């Protein structure tokens, strides 16, 4: 009996879970549609979509017995029904009402998720909200029926007149008629709360393509088979190396497919921003439009959660500080409506997310003045700073240039929190700004958190992993120097690293490990580390090889210690704890050296050159043996690195011809090959002569640049046959001189080089994909 009872209960629980996930997805779609609906009030598709979301919730709640939710959903449905039947016009107030409905539904869903029941709130919020929804519906209908009536008049007053400042319940203008009593009963903070509390059910569930799962299952099958064979085999057996190789490849593939399954489009994160921007813009009295780009860019699920808050911060900043008030925009000749663009793309093994606004930009003068005022830098240091360095000061804790503290942002916390959070997951943040034309905040996060490169160090006979991203350099102190190397100021021990004094932290002493001999009587290593502004030397006994470690989380009690961010199994099968560098420094009492200025800025400055190199880099290659018609210099040509996806070496035998044109089957698509320098013919001839005397087959390969050629309707992938790739180097486009030639020229490595036709406009844009291999 007991056995039979149980599945029923479980079944209901499963259904509830599924319902929650589905409803939350529905609500999220609804949110997007609602903000779009405001722009396109006549779009019936949008109304239908919203209606569906609410309808589904209503239908399922009745079945599961959530009466409170059903009531609210029903009220919403009937209002939406009126809207769908065109008995009602879209107005700002209507949208606000619907957004409140959504918040209400979401609130109840969260209660259900947390407690399993829908709860009964003491203040009767639901009925107030329902009354408001009903009133909206009835008033709308009445307005339609009798346009000249009193109702209509008040409706007009509410609608367009209030459009710039209402929309946010708490910020409603006082003149907006007699619904105040009803409205004030609503929780004023509702929209804010709904945004801060991320739907936790969705954080835990993930939708995966069945094909991906099937592939994983196949790989697991392969893994089991290989294991069986290995178990039956012995290390001395003949086929053992082959088995080991297969195990290796299966593992690699499995890892890749699991990582792929964890990837989520960034767009999932972007979804909530239209609403956020809408509410914020209303609160701050701005007119702002939000645009997205690269929503399909994949990012690991856990990282997606990690950048959610920093991104919210950044967008708030962009709307509140970035975009100017409409009046100011008109005066400076800009369109009244400001634009916040969110852009995501892959770049060299990391994901870049940018928040770009076309607002006032940041005045470096003001930043520096403020920094001096706060004692962050000295006037002399400020003098010597580049614009870029000055901008980075904004990330220093306790810095805010807002003239006025608003309730949206500008409390002096913000950008430093953004930086700390992003750095926590191994990413970086940088800021670019052009006074008068806007600001770009760029976050760079790694593709995955699960696997990080680390250096394994030994201290008191135990291994610890030190993440590479916080490692600056390593210093070896031989035994005979050990005594003199360490100097003391009070209780702090210091090491003279070049010109500056570096505080030392003995890992064994800090962790309370037993050490056999006095540390200063034998040789040791100093790992110079830096994280969250703390820079110090970690003293360890020995260094082991760098390893790519798989990060495993620790249980809560061990996380609480704070010094370890996880554990990992090393190549030799033993466990090593992963050190949290920032927390280690904090525990040892090393203070952040942000006040210094120089330390904070040292790193971004290096990053900058690397970044600029990447974005303006050109691949230089030879098109053919003969001076081609367009090559300026013995066939030497260049192409923006950003346009090149891959450089492949293709055996000549794999190149096929269709209708006289060379094509290549590349990753399941037919790639047209372009061969301006007749390289293929030359290669074919070479192969003919070679194979006549030589038995070697497939010896001749052609170098093909797989590139994306920008075209009117998006980019098209083509293969460019080249004789050989010479180099990758920073280049600069030369201004087109129409009179001289049609060719676009660039200065690469101090030589004028022609850019491959059709690719010039791509130079200087970030590359769309990772350059995997340079042949």
């Amino acid at each position: 009996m007991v056995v039979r009872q149980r599945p029923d209960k479980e079944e209901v629980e499963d259904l509830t879970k599924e319902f929650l996930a589905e409803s939350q997805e529905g609500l999220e779609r609804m949110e997007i549609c609602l903000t779009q609906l405001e722009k396109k009030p006549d779009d019936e598709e949008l109304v239908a979509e919203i209606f569906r979301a609410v309808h589904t919730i209503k239908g399922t709640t009745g079945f599961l017995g959530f009466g409170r939710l059903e009531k609210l959903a029903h009220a919403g449905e009937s209002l939406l029904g009126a809207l769908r039947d065109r008995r009602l016009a879209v107005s700002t107030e209507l949208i606000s009402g619907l957004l409140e409905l959504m918040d209400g539904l979401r609130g109840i869903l969260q209660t259900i998720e947390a407690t399993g029941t829908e709860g009964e709130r003491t203040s009767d919020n639901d009925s107030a909200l329902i009354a408001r929804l009903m009133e909206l519906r009835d008033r709308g209908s009445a307005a339609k029926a009798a346009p000249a009536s009193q109702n209509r008049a008040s409706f007009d007053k509410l609608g367009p007149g209030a459009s710039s400042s209402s929309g946010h319940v708490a910020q409603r203008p006082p003149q907006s008629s007699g619904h105040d009593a009803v409205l004030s009963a609503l929780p004023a903070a509702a929209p804010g709360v709904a945004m801060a509390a991320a739907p936790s059910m969705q954080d835990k569930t993930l939708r995966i393509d069945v094909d991906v799962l099937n592939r994983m299952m196949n790989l697991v099958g392969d893994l089991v088979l290989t294991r069986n064979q290995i178990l039956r085999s012995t290390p001395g057996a003949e086929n053992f190396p082959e088995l080991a190789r297969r195990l290796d490849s299966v593992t690699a593939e499995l890892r890749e497919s699991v990582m792929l399954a964890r990837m989520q489009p960034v767009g999932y994160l972007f979804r909530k921003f239209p609403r956020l921007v809408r509410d914020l813009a209303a609160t701050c009295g701005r007119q702002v439009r939000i645009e997205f780009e690269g929503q399909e860019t994949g990012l690991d699920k856990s990282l997606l959660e990690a950048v959610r808050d920093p991104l919210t911060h950044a967008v708030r900043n962009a709307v509140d500080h970035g975009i100017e008030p409409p009046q100011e925009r008109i005066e400076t000749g800009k369109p009244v409506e400001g634009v916040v663009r969110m852009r995501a793309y892959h770049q060299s093994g990391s994901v870049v997310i940018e928040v770009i606004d076309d607002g006032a930009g940041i005045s470096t003068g003001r930043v520096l003045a403020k920094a001096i005022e706060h004692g962050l830098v000295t006037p002399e240091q400020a003098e010597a700073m580049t614009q870029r360095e000055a901008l980075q000061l904004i990330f220093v804790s306790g810095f805010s240039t807002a003239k006025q503290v608003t309730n949206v942002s500008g409390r002096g916390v913000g950008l430093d929190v953004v930086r700390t959070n992003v750095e926590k997951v191994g990413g970086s943040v940088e800021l670019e700004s052009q006074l008068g034309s806007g600001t770009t905040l760029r976050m760079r996060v790694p593709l995955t958190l699960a696997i990080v490169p680390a250096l394994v160090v030994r201290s008191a006979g135990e291994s610890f992993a030190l993440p590479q991203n916080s490692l600056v350099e390593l210093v070896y102190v031989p035994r005979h120097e050990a005594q003199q190397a360490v100097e003391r100021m009070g209780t702090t021990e210091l090491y003279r690293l070049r010109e500056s004094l570096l505080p030392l932290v003995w890992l064994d002493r800090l962790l309370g490990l037993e050490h056999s001999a006095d540390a200063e009587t034998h040789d040791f290593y100093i790992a110079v580390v830096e994280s969250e502004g703390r820079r110090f030397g970690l003293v360890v006994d020995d260094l082991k090889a760098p390893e790519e470690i798989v990060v495993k989380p620790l249980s809560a009690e061990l996380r609480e210690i704070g010094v370890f961010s996880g554990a990992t199994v090393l190549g030799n099968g033993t466990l090593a704890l992963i050190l949290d560098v920032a927390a280690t420094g904090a525990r040892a009492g090393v203070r952040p050296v942000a006040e210094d200025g120089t330390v904070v800025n040292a790193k971004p400055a290096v990053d900058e050159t690397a970044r600029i190199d990447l974005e303006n880099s050109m691949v230089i290659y030879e098109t053919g043996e003969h001076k081609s018609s367009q090559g300026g210099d013995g066939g030497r040509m260049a192409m923006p690195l950003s346009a090149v996806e891959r450089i492949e070496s293709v055996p000549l035998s794999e190149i096929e011809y269709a209708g006289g044109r060379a094509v290549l089957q590349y990753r399941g698509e037919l790639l047209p090959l372009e061969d301006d320098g007749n390289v293929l013919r030359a290669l074919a001839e070479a192969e003919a002569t070679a194979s006549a005397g030589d038995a070697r087959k497939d010896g001749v390969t052609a170098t093909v640049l797989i590139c994306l050629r920008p075209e009117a309707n998006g980019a098209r992938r083509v293969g460019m046959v080249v004789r050989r790739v010479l180099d990758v180097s920073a280049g600069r486009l030369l201004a087109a001189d129409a009179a001289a030639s049609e060719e676009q020229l660039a200065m690469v490595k101090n030589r004028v080089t022609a850019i491959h036709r059709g690719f010039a406009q791509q130079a200087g844009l970030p590359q769309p994909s990772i350059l995997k291999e340079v042949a």
Partner: protein
Amino acid sequence: MRSTEVKEADTGDALPICSLRVGTGLYGIETRQIREVLGTTAPRRVPLAPQYIAGVLPYRGEVLTTVCFRALLGLECWAGSHCVLVFDDEENEERFGLMVDGVAGVIAVQRNALEANPGGLDARSQELFDGAYKLPSGLMVRLDPQRLRPSRLAESGLFGSESASHGRLKQERQGEKK
């Protein structure tokens, strides 16, 4: 040792109990609560961890936090041979290990042979023990794995820093305290 009792297990009123040796005492945990018994794998010590945490172990692709039962009893944590039992806690999704001196074997006991904790126990024992079985050879203290979860031990506050006075981390930990 188990030949006679195993027969009783078939009667349905008997409970198979895995008996454990820790120090001089005999302890028992219901076999169905145990997920796996690992051999003599030494957990890796975690510096600065609470005294009752023996360390961490790699287990099924996870890092298993292992509780040292000796430390809970106030004994020296490491004493020659040891053995790690793995427990699952499905509700809280918390999996943990328990380090004991050794596993003695499975004993079937009558359900009604369990005697609740007597009143005179000190707070720590009250927290750890779940009654005792009166065996002919002596008492076997019953343990409830749910009470030995690291998170619960941390919450109870009974086994925190003050129990550090027993273990070998003592001196270092005191040196560490601010």
